[in-house]
């Protein structure tokens, strides 16, 4: 990986260990910045990349995910005070989806915690957290270090992902259940490559995430691409991932919520309850940051909530306002994420909706602007609050996963 790099004031974005592979396969030069790295938005076509997740196998470079190692005698106590879930239940080899909040119970960020040993954890998150973690670590015997650049990460997702990983030699993978991780090896150029594999992902489908030494990244990528064979494995960019994550009902910071560590205006922070993540909050485990505020909110009921919408028509309702009636007189909230779902054949959205309208089955009206060859039309279309996730195939949980 030791390619000479330009200084940061000429080239502010870093390149991941997969960058050169990705650059070679990028047909339309669509890169976007993500957490300080340059990453692929679209390789060829978001549609085609989308179908590799739902039909075969996809590779997504998630190296820019910010990673921390947390260890020390108080690591568990520290995490249990920091996060809303009870991590005492998280044993080595397990992964948990978590959120953490400020004192007011507003979300700072979400992420995953990997228990890698007694009082040893890895945290994966979208944005840098050292400032908050350090402040939260006062009084705990715990060491926190950022390991983002030390770990290359690749998501292998899709119904054939298990077969693909078996084909490249990951023995024992059939025993790995959802939200478990373990050490696996595959043949490398000279010696076998050992890496951590977790059965996790952001697609709502069968899939794995591979966490490896940056030096192994190129070989792993090449090996996976070689074994895709006629069934197809292809790299995907952020756009395709965004489509599948909406189908799976997952939230993204800066799209569905803004971290309470960044908001400038009052009232734009969001609590886990408002984001529909109340199931991540464990009031029985004792004190944790934000507990009192969240308890009050749970008693009072949230003022608004993130819900899934099924919208008439086929035009994705990006950034639309929601109304209680077709007349558009009373606002009821707004869309945070939207996509046409090629698998469900539904026009889907996540929306932050005022409390009176959050019940499943509620009908709302969405304001959509249609571009008819530069003649713009405003439409009010009907939307129904529906259950999330929109798409949850049984294959994602099957252990052992089905062979293809």
């Amino acid at each position, binding site marked *: 990986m030791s390619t000479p790099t330009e*200084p*940061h*004031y*000429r080239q*502010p*974005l870093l390149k991941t260990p997969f960058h050169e592979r990705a650059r070679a396969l990028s047909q339309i030069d669509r890169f976007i*910045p993500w957490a*300080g790295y340059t990453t692929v938005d679209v390789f060829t076509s978001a549609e085609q990349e989308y179908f590799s997740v739902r039909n075969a196998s996809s590779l997504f470079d998630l190296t820019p995910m910010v990673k921390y190692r947390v260890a020390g005698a108080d690591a568990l106590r520290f995490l249990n005070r920091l996060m809303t879930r009870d991590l005492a239940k998280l044993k080595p080899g397990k992964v948990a989806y978590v959120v953490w909040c400020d004192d*007011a119970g507003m979300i700072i960020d979400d992420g995953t915690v990997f228990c890698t040993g007694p009082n040893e954890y890895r945290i994966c998150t979208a944005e*840098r*957290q*050292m*400032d908050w973690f*350090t402040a939260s670590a006062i009084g705990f015997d715990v060491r926190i270090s*950022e390991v983002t650049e030390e770990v290359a990460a690749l998501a292998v997702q899709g119904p054939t992902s298990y077969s693909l990983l078996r084909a490249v030699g990951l023995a024992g993978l059939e025993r790995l259940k959802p939200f478990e991780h373990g050490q696996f090896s595959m043949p490398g150029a000279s010696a076998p490559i050992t890496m951590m594999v977790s059965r996790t992902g952001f697609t709502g489908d069968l899939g794995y995430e591979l966490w490896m030494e940056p030096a192994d990244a190129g070989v792993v990528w090449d090996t996976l691409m070689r074994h895709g064979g006629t069934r197809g494995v292809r790299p995907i960019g952020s756009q395709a991932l965004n489509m599948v994550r909406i189908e799976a009902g997952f939230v993204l910071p800066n799209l569905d919520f803004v971290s309470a*560590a*960044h*908001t*400038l*205006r*009052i009232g734009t922070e969001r609590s886990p309850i408002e984001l529909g993540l109340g199931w991540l909050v464990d009031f029985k485990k004792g004190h944790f940051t934000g507990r009192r505020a969240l308890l009050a909110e749970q008693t009072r009921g949230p003022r608004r909530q993130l819900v899934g919408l099924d919208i008439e028509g086929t035009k994705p309702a990006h950034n639309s306002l929601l109304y209680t009636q077709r007349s558009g007189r009373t606002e009821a909230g707004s869309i945070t994420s939207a996509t046409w779902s090629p698998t469900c054949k539904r026009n889907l959205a996540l929306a932050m909706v005022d409390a009176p309208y959050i019940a499943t089955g509620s009908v709302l009206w969405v304001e959509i602007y249609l571009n008819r060859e530069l003649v713009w039309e405003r439409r009010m279309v009907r939307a129904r609050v529906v259950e999330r996730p929109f798409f949850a195939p049984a294959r994602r949980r099957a252990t052992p996963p089905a062979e293809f």
Partner: protein
Amino acid sequence: MGVTNRYDAIIVGAGHNGLVNACYLARAGLKVLVLERNPFVGGAAVSRSLYDGFTYSNCSYVCSLLRTEIIRALALPQHGLQIIPYEGGCTMMRDGGHLAVYDNHDALRREIARHSPHDAEAYERYVRDMLRHCRFIKPLLLREPPDPTSFRPRDIHELMFLGKHFHNLGEARMYDTLRFWTMSCADMLEEYFESEIVKAHMAGSSIIGTALGPRSAGTAYVLLHHYMGSIDGAVGAWGFARGGMGAITQALASSFKASGGEVRVSAPVEQIRVRGGRATGVVLDDGEEISAPVVVSNMDVKRTFLKTVAAEHLPAEFIDQVRKFKIRGSSGKLNIALDGLPSFPAIPQGSPAMRGDLHITDTIEMLERGYDDWKEGRWSRAPYVDMLIPTQIDPTMTPDGKHYMSVFVQYCPYQLADGDWTDAKRQAFGKTVIDAIGAHSPDFKDLILHAEIRTPKDIENEVGLTEGNIFQGELTFDQLLFNRPVPGYAQYRAPVRGMYMCGSSTHPGGGVMGAPGANSAAAILRDLGRKV
């Protein structure tokens, strides 16, 4: 000389606030005369040529705070004003290192992380908090501060606005706001950063134009004052007025004349005439009297009331308060014509940091020591400089290949411990600054073609600012909002009917904002029963 022309309003001083005020009054249909004692307009926002082919921004040198509302309302772009954001900034360190500030978020994060990964992340929290404070203060800038002791409906309404605005912050931020407005900059930065160089770089703007050190209470606000401007929506961005800061006052004068206003230069006002408790006009130094029912002073509050209005017309306590108003001289300025672009080995080749504000003070301690010198009545032996070379961006100020460098210097006293300023002392002050810069640039001294060295005394003599204070009064909490310039007189009205203030001595203060001029015009027009 007898009474000449009659005007609806006379503005004393053609600084940017005087001209903003004049523009608004003229646009409301008043017959307005602006009187300026210098042979040129601009006050402390001037571009002058003191060396053949070179234009200097002689006093103020960068722009961010000038209110967009004013630029638009007075059509300043149509009158030639263009403001171009600059690209970064840098503090050079004594050990040859540097900390640069870049426009690009990721470049900046990696730059700060070179010094401290912790600070790179803490910077995000710092920016968030500064932006939150800006959001609180911004709506207050273009409003007349309410008098908290008054029961006039307007005051009650404005107080309610202020109260509601404050209340809307929510509990936690109400506490934060009060702490912030009274804290020292050093204490405030300590809550975010661990790296000395990061703190030193951020601290610079907390002491500019202020006779306080970074450890003095109240300096955190001064830092915010420099952060709350914006260019085209980019909060905190600073830029160059194309053609120097005089471009701002030239555009204002042009806009004013287009509205039918009249400017007279080389017309020093000796006295503001008062009869029967009413301002009736002005008397020039040659004895000429000009009458008008409204007289607006763009001069600072001390110069206005201690030198230009006879004390017999003013309340004793008011005069006493004016005397106590802190408007101390603490900064000097060098304007330097350069034969070429000086090299700064600490700054990496090709770094855009060079096209921004450059500094050589690398610890808060060094900044505080500089202030110690001021307290003892001498200029800082290791001065803080805010140094820019606008000609890397602005092609209009020098011949091609030559450069103009603006060097703001802190601290420099108005009154020296060892007696009055002399030519020799001015030269020695200049040498201190040039040597300090030369320590970071081997070719700098050889490139100097001409240097204008300005002490606080020089700035007072030329511009008329008391003690050469660039803000017409320091920007600390005790001198802000309804206490600026004097409690009970924060609403632009003098104790004499028909007389008004519009300079930076009034809310919301200095920094080439134009807001005092605009707010004052609104107060005048309200008093005249005109539509604002």
